[in-house]
């Protein structure tokens, strides 16, 4: 499975990272180097092996479905690059 330039463009779009056309080929080379290295996992027989999703044998804790936090919009907005009228402000969406 080798990544071509169109694939790099597609995953960069999925990841919302702008990449110059000139940078596509070097990035494809680096990604292919890493992917061909991790492909060694294909040698391992994993038939019937469950995926490990949690290293601690703990049940996910539950709690009552009630509001336990909040009520400080100033703190939430304090680091926003732009905030207006108590909201995060973003550029106009033109579709």
């Amino acid at each position: 499975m080798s990544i071509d330039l169109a694939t790099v463009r597609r995953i960069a779009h999925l990841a919302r990272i702008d990449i110059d056309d000139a940078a596509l080929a070097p990035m494809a080379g680096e990604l292919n180097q890493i992917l061909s290295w991790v492909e060694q996992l294909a040698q391992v027989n994993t038939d019937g092996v469950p995926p490990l999703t949690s290293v601690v044998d703990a049940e996910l804790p539950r709690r009552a479905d009630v509001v336990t936090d909040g009520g400080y919009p100033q703190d939430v907005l304090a680091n926003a690059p732009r905030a207006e009228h108590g909201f995060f402000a973003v550029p106009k969406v033109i579709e």
Partner: protein
Amino acid sequence: MSDFLALTLAEARDGLYRRDFTARELADAYIEAMAAARALNAYCAETPERALAMAAAADQALAAGNAGPLAGIPLGIKDLFCTKDVLSQASSRILEGFKPRYESTVTANLWRDGAVMLGKTAMDEFAMGSSTETAVTGPVTNPWRGEGSNKNLVPGGSSGGSSAAVAAKIALGATGTDTGGSIRQPAAFTGTVGIKPTYGRCSRWGIIAFASSLDQAGPIARTVRDAAILLKSMAGHDPKDSTSINAPVPDFEAALSGDIRGLKVGIPKEYHTTQMPAEIEALWQQGIAWLKDAGAKIVDVSLPHTQYALATYYIVAPAEASSNLARYDGVRYGLRVNNGGGLHDMYAKTRAAGFGKEVKRRILIGTYVLSAGYYDAYYLKAQQVRTLIARDFAEAFKKVDVLLTPTAPSSAFGIGETTDPIAMYLNDVFTVPASLAGLPAMSLPAGLDKAGLPLGLQLIGKVLDEETVIKVGGVIERAAGFAAQPKPWWRS
């Protein structure tokens, strides 16, 4: 007191409790040393005013007789921890100017116990690296240099600012985080002690996320005892982290009994790699001999899937990172790049300008292995191999109490020397397996190589059995008698 900086954390704590000196005097000495060591670039933000205020509070508590166990102890805090009203950037441009309005649980625990914050320590951007060369504030330099050499070396990574600060005695201890070796490898490169506890021992709340199923906080310190003292304060159940383990926190310092008679120490044969330098193999054998002399029983064990651990890690960690780092979009905090092109353009331009090369590489790899059509071939496969790696450890721990291995396959290398990503990833070959299995592990200095640079040994324990790791670490520390120190070339 002529030389505050020479005291270990345990000695400083005891001196403060005896009122031999004040927290203010200790803080002054460290603030001065920190300012005189800027050539190392270990701190990305210094907070001397806060240190003095916290030291004053510690002195009051000591006078009143209600001081906490870390009263007046000056610490460096890795930039991955959110610290209220203090820059917390994960050493990334994308979090430019970010001052959290809240405090991470681990640092809050340290302040509750009376510790003093000297500042934030630099790290590889978003903890992705093994050299601390990718910090937005520039590379950190290892206080250690080779015998007769002026070459600047890396302090390991990603917690390289913390390891450099402890080694240079510009912090009495420091916090680190370890996802695949980011506490242990920098500890090995700087002649310091680093503990990555069991996954879930320390709360991840308020720690900027990299790979959530692997990230774990722990201490870097000068001695095993100092690291044990810090870990006790850092650890504990936290309802705000659903993966936090609800188990009592032992008195880790009390584990240092020195008695390991009859204890079974496993030596995993797969860690004897052909590429390993003879000096590191020899140090490992020396470690085995020390433990035998102390009455431990040495048992050969096998961890058959070790060779697949790094490749597994480099699928799982980027996949989780690509998801975690999706939040940096120029809307809620940090950098925004807006050239008038609309919302989607702002996202893509902000992320292009804000993330460094390695972070972008990992986000793209992670996005790819999670994308439709590739998920099973890469991500699911890696999660299955991760099960096999965890089972290997479970099998080994039926026969032994603890494992002994080298920490890293080399000593510290030069800044700018390792440019190939995979060559950099190989630094973590001995530390990644324990991370994937969530096990506690420690690196401690055990000797010097030919060039006069520190080398570390690693101990890996059973789930929630940091105490055995610390106990055995104490025995190796005493046998090794590691007393070497870097020459203070950096002092201005």
